[in-house]
């Protein structure tokens, strides 16, 4: 009964929260892919300083805790003259962290190709660009589907840091404290967001698996 009461009072809020989580996840993931790709290009290019910066970038952002990152962006950057709104703070933090993991995934995707095929491409007389376009990138992209599926789920979980700054509407994690500070619904208030997270990750995992089955390269 209390569950129905909860839903009738806060149902809209849960829906809004779910959408907030979803769109922040989507934007962060897309941003992370783009940035991760750029970092990867830096890391594989033959220009040493760019490589060093790329490697350094990845080590910093894959190892920094999400909360620590958010705090720096939200509370330290303003002291350095850069003030962002709360939502952009969350997005920037998530994108920085997840792009480091995206780059690691891209790198391991490139690694699956192997030196042999690179030499074979060269021996056929393919130029560097042709080799990248026809041999390396297609294989790297196809082998990167499972880790990127995991990363998409991880990105969603990372957006939970938004609960630490005043974001309106609150996303799925923030909504728990929002509701519970007003009405003590106890476990009930927790169940809806948890189920939403869970279903979303299961769905992402399922779709990722299907895509992987279609594009997987036999080896």
């Amino acid at each position: 009964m209390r569950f129905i009461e909860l839903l009738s009072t806060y149902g809209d809020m849960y829906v809004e929260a779910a959408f907030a989580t979803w769109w922040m996840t989507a934007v962060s993931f897309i941003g992370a892919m783009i940035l991760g790709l750029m970092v990867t290009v830096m890391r594989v290019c033959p220009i040493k300083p760019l490589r060093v910066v790329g490697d350094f970038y990845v080590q910093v952002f894959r190892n920094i805790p999400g909360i620590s990152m958010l705090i720096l962006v939200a509370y330290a950057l303003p002291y350095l003259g850069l003030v962002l709104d709360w939502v952009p703070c969350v997005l920037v933090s998530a994108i920085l962290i997840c792009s480091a993991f995206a780059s690691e995934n891209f790198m391991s995707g490139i690694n699956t190709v192997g030196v042999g095929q690179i030499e074979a491409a060269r021996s056929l007389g393919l130029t560097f660009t042709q080799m990248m376009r026809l041999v390396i990138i297609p294989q790297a992209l196809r082998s990167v589907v499972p880790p990127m599926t995991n990363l998409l789920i991880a990105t969603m979980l990372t957006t939970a840091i938004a609960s630490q700054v005043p974001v309106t509407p609150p996303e799925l994690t923030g909504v728990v404290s929002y509701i519970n500070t007003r009405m003590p619904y106890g476990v009930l208030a927790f169940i809806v967001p948890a189920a939403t997270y869970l279903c979303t990750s299961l769905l992402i995992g399922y779709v990722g698996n299907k895509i992987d089955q279609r594009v997987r390269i036999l080896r």
Partner: protein
Amino acid sequence: MSAPAVKPIRDSLYEQPGPKTRRRIVVATGIAAVLVLIGIALIIRQFYITGQLDPKYWLLFTRWTTWKFLLTGFMGTLKSAFVAGVLALAGGLILMWGRLSKITPVRWVARAITEFFRGVPSLLFVYFFFIVMPTVGIKMDSFWMITLPAAMSAAGACAEVFRAGVNAVPAGQVEAAKSLGMSKTKTMLLIQLPQAIRFVVPTLISQLVIVVKDTTLAYVVSYADLLQNGRVLIANYDALVSVYLVIAIIYIVLNYLINKASVAIANRSGVKLIDVSKVSS
């Protein structure tokens, strides 16, 4: 055949440059180096013009008391991470065992719990213990409010790692054990697990990074970890940027070292890291 030690793939993408390419690379390297230096200079300049380079923000790090306080917090982080790690190992083992069980409902429950732990942010678990549990009259110590969520998330990941490890044990080994008349439990305990552990140790160590990251959620429940103690310092010295920066660097270095260790052990024992990637929140 007589090639030297295998180059990393990113070097193999390029062939030995000819003279023209070499010149181009030298020029590009020069330009890139200058740009990187300019970038660093701009960042430092930004610190300078906003007054963040003022000694008052940094001198506190020359004091022993500051470090002692941070160290106390760091120990809090390690304590929580350690306990969470142990719990996650145990929980992961139980979940893995459940997933390989003969009894269908047990398999389902284990599967559901694993997915639940893996698919829900640790922060939400923190809120569960921090906000939800007190409403039903259960009040916990802040240590557990942070350690249990970290352990739950990691247990889900550990279960997957263990499962991958057990699956990596050659089928022949299990058959051999069966032909010796070993029971299923005995086979698992004496044959599969010991070998699986060798496969999974490096990956488990790398999972420790996630646990360490999760302990920063102590921020929410005011458990005295590194980050939380940093906040106290900030309040005392009014030095937010420098303290948060130093703390972030400590976390990064710690996690970097954990990763390094796991890769080193993986290389030494010749096993691959298992990908159950999950970034922390």
